[in-house]
């Protein structure tokens, strides 16, 4: 094996492991985001889709900015609620953002 071959193999190895690690991190982040967002689905349905006739609204496909504003309005008390004001106070702004992005990208 000449030096050029050795170099290219090392380069590919670096490239592959670099890509692979980056990909795994991306996958892990997506997995955690999805599982965290699933904390909403006990009441708002799997993937944010409630059962037919539910008074609790579906949240899948809800525009991100709208959802963030509503969640923050629950959190700061400007939007009255029975339960949501108590739950949103347990979430950081970053967690609210992550949930909103997940459901906004989850088409109806």
């Amino acid at each position, binding site marked *: 094996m000449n030096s050029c071959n050795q170099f290219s193999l090392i380069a590919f190895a670096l490239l592959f492991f670099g*890509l692979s690690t980056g990909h795994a991190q991306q*996958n892990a982040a*997506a997995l955690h985001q*999805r*599982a965290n967002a699933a904390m909403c689905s*006990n009441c708002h349905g*799997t993937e944010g889709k409630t059962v037919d006739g539910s008074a609790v609204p579906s949240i899948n496909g809800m525009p991100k900015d709208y959802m963030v504003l509503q969640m923050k309005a629950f959190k700061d008390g400007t939007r009255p609620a029975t339960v949501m004001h108590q739950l949103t106070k*347990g979430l950081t702004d970053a967690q609210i953002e992550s949930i909103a992005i997940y459901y906004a990208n989850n088409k109806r």
Partner: protein
Amino acid sequence: MKRRNFVQASMALGSMASLASLVGCATTGRIPEKTRVLVVGGGYGGAAAAKYVRMLSNYQIDVVLIEPESAFVSCPMSNLVIGGSKTISDITTPYDNLASKHGVNVVRDYVSNIDANKKIATLASGSSIRYDKMILSPGIELMFNTVEGLKQASDSGQVLQAWKAGQETTNLRKQLVDMPDGGVFAITIPEAPYRCPPGPYERASQVANYLKQNKPKSKVLILDANQDVTSKGPLFKKFWADNYKGILEYIPQHKVTAVDAKSKTLKFEVQNDVKANVLNVIPAMRAGSIAVQTGLANANNRWCGVNYQTFESTQSKDIHIIGDSILAAPAMPKSGHMANSHAKVVAAAIVAQLSDLAINPEPYLMNTCYSFVNDKYVVHVASVHQYDSKDKTYKTVPGSGGLSAAPSELEAIYAWNWAQNIWNDTLG
């Protein structure tokens, strides 16, 4: 670069592309073929975990669910069957969708033995199942032997617990309906922790509501081993005072030690005996018997210690335990909603581990628990539990969670909708 090297480079790129496609660009990494997660117990925890391992692995991980019952009967809402505003069929959901929609292999059987070293579970039918990861969600075992005479009284059907929803729920409803006007219905509550902290008080409220409308000369007695109402205390007590005066009597610090089914008598640690027409004795509880038998109940031989980030047993590798049977983190209730929340954290942790991905460093859990104080009014308690990586436990977030301001009809609508949606999220 020489031509030959370029070809090699192209081939290498090609194989990288195919590897990347194997890894998949959704939420999972590479999962070894025929990786199997075995879920034991199909309640709020186990059924949801089975579904979410399938979903979060993009249907790449085989999931087998072992559950002895043919259908899921919900403990939450079962007090409404005793009160008479719902029927047992209203709170029953089949397991069909887990198989047809999510590809879970649902096996109607009972796990009789777990070999944690060989990672094999033996079923009551005699067959064995190998697993890579086990999710154990066995619920609770009622400790009948903590109350003298209770085992026989329970076996004969004279004294019911109805703390595992099903036939006993229907039977307790019948005992209430058959009770003469002027009779006494006694409910005993064990010391905390037990499954569903507000459940006994909701049940007493349902019985009181039925008596008020149908047998106004009768009474319901709550004989509580605890110092005070363990959940939603001020809300229950105010509603009782306003609506069930003379019908419902709350008696704290009464720990039942013996029961005589023949004379319908309860005996206590300190106080005088109590006679009643219906005895609903809820005994102390511990982790489901398979967990105890496998040596996983390493906290006082009652509850199962787990690593809260992954719910992996502190006793046995690759066995993850969720739901009522775990040693709960501070302020974490033993509830169906909480078990469903555990299910999502454990499913994600197992998918991550089997895919060689990082485990969520900051999982969190939510709980919302509704109680019907009559057939139309409801109160709730809610909480958020964030994982603290430093102290390796869940902590409720200061300022979050809380109770209803007052009972309301609006919350009754939300409560029934909660049930519909969580049943669908767990089994649909």
